């Protein structure tokens, strides 16, 4: 029930919808100070690599991966210990055995990742069939697919180091304690005061306009601080209760602090990249626009009508199931609440690697979900259909993605 407004940071250039490789270097800038430093860095760094091979940076900071007969490992280019991290996640994600298909795809991905310059078309093609869980390569592939890592492998470690320090700087600037901010303000006020009128016996520090913990002023630092705290608490609560069965989300990770800091920074930038294509769904002001959530839900409905008019008619006309009642969650959460975690990862492999982009792919997958249960839907009434779609049955994800892919072929033919 908060007020309707778009926070300023949402309008940052950070969220620009179509990332191009060249502006990726300096688009993550929030404050004037970081803008100038990164822009300067971008200018001083040649973007095109010289044709003469240059010697790589320190050997220790190069991407490392080892391929043995049984076990594949792909390590964080910066932190040699980070493979613990990805292995933990992957064990959580899939305890099941590895299929021969997975092993061959894993080998192909590892081969692709070990090239000097990653071929994105190839990477997308292989990854769209699902990234095997075993080798801890998903974190690297997703970083590439989201454009967080550049295709040139030699730039990875410097790029990651830069982003991680940038993130650290964001945190220091944006999460400053109000006491520190007011102290700074007071200090400058006192300085001004003592310069202009040094005749008084006792100098007094003035309380800066409304900058005290009880201030209710809209722009008050303290008020903002309390609002932020409330949001952080809400996020914390939701993260913990979203997958309470998984250690990763329950809070205490047995990870080294440095790994955690790096993972946090990486996740932040990857999240920004991901959301750049979906942010409009989260702006209430855009709900009735052509880019808002309602319009996307209508597109899904239209898409279903094109591919299976009988089902569409039964759902929306006969049983009057408003697609908003199920598709709102499907679309805003990118299907993460409809399937278990391992299955969600598999779907996301496809969402992130499809050349048509995550949104188009998502709509195809949603449409395929409806078509796969069409027999039950056609036999159902409002209640049973809505219950079915709000509690989608666990499915063979490979088959679901196969059907979704078929919908594309039909559309383009």
């Amino acid at each position, binding site marked *: 029930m*908060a007020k309707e407004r778009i926070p300023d940071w949402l309008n940052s250039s950070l969220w620009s919808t179509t990332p191009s490789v060249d502006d990726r270097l300096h688009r993550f800038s929030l404050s004037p100070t970081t803008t100038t430093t990164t822009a300067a860095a971008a200018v001083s760094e040649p973007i095109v690599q010289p044709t003469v091979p240059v010697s790589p940076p320190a050997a220790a900071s190069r991407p490392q991966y080892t391929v043995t007969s049984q076990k594949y490992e792909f390590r964080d280019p910066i932190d040699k210990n980070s493979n613990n991290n990805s292995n933990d996640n992957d064990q959580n994600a899939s305890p099941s055995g590895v299929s021969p298909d997975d092993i061959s795809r894993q080998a192909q991905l590892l081969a692709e990742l070990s090239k000097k310059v990653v071929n994105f078309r190839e990477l997308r093609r292989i990854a769209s069939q699902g990234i095997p869980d075993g080798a801890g390569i998903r974190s690297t592939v997703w970083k590439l697919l989201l454009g967080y890592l550049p295709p040139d492998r030699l730039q990875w470690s410097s790029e990651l180091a830069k982003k991680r320090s940038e993130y650290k700087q964001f945190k220091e600037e944006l999460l400053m304690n109000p006491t520190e901010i007011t102290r700074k303000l007071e200090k400058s006020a006192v300085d001004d005061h003592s310069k202009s009128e040094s005749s008084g016996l006792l100098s007094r520090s003035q309380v800066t306009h409304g900058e005290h913990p009880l201030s209710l002023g809209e722009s008050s630092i303290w008020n903002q601080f309390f609002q932020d705290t409330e949001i952080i608490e*809400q996020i914390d609560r939701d993260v913990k209760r979203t997958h309470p069965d998984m250690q990763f989300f329950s809070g205490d990770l047995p990870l080294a602090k440095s790994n955690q800091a790096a993972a946090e920074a990486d996740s932040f930038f990857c999240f920004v990249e991901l959301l750049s294509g979906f942010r409009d769904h989260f702006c209430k002001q855009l709900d009735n626009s052509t880019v808002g959530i*309602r319009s996307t839900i209508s597109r899904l409905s239209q898409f279903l009508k094109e591919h299976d008019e009988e089902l569409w008619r039964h759902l929306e006309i006969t049983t009057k199931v408003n697609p908003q*009642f199920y598709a*709102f969650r499907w679309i805003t959460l990118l299907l993460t609440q409809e399937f278990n975690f391992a299955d969600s990862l598999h779907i996301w492999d496809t969402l992130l690697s499809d050349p048509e982009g995550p949104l188009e792919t998502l709509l195809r997958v949603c449409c395929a979900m409806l078509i796969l249960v069409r027999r039950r839907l056609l036999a159902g009434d409002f209640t049973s259909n*809505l*219950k079915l779609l709000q509690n989608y049955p666990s499915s063979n994800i490979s088959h679901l993605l196969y059907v979704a892919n078929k919908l594309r072929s039909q559309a383009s033919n």
Partner: protein
Amino acid sequence: MAHRVDHEYDYLFKIVLIGDSGVGKSNILSRFTRNEFCLESKSTIGVEFATRTVQVEGKTVKAQIWDTAGQERYRAITSAYYRGAVGALLVYDITKRQTFDNVQRWLRELRDHADSNIVLMMAGNKSDLNHLRSVSEEDGHAVAEKEGLSFLETSALEATNIEKAFQTILNEIYHIVSKKALAAQEAAASASIPGQGTTINVGDESGNTKTACCST
């Protein structure tokens, strides 16, 4: 089981659950419809939906309950939630004063979107956490009286008053609906138009109504 088309009820009443995020709406729903409680239930996104069939004064009433998201952003489709709703359960958390203060905002939202005759009940949930209480039961009663709502303190965790809350709403709705039906019938009879067949048995008080098991 879920895809069986059923018409085995006399009345279908739509009820919405509203209130701030985290007050326990989803658990009230799962307690009433499935007799389940989950301490870490996921945040509701958009709307969730469940049904239960109960007996009200000898009639089979199917309660269609819409659990709506408490978080502002996930209420994008508000007007659709309220369309056709004949009852609402407005929930706050007795351990969080803010959720009680926001009752007024929810009442405003109801006035804006719901039918003006909607049957309203307020529930102060989490009564099992009495040691953390920050809203007294008297305060709850006072607001309920001022706004003309029925009121109960509930605990989805301990299953306290959950049945009673829904039963109260459903009874009240039933009375309004049957009175209307009776009036319509009398009007029809006095205009000497042949009756259309809906016989409402008002006098049937026999046997205290017992709650039937879950539907579907």
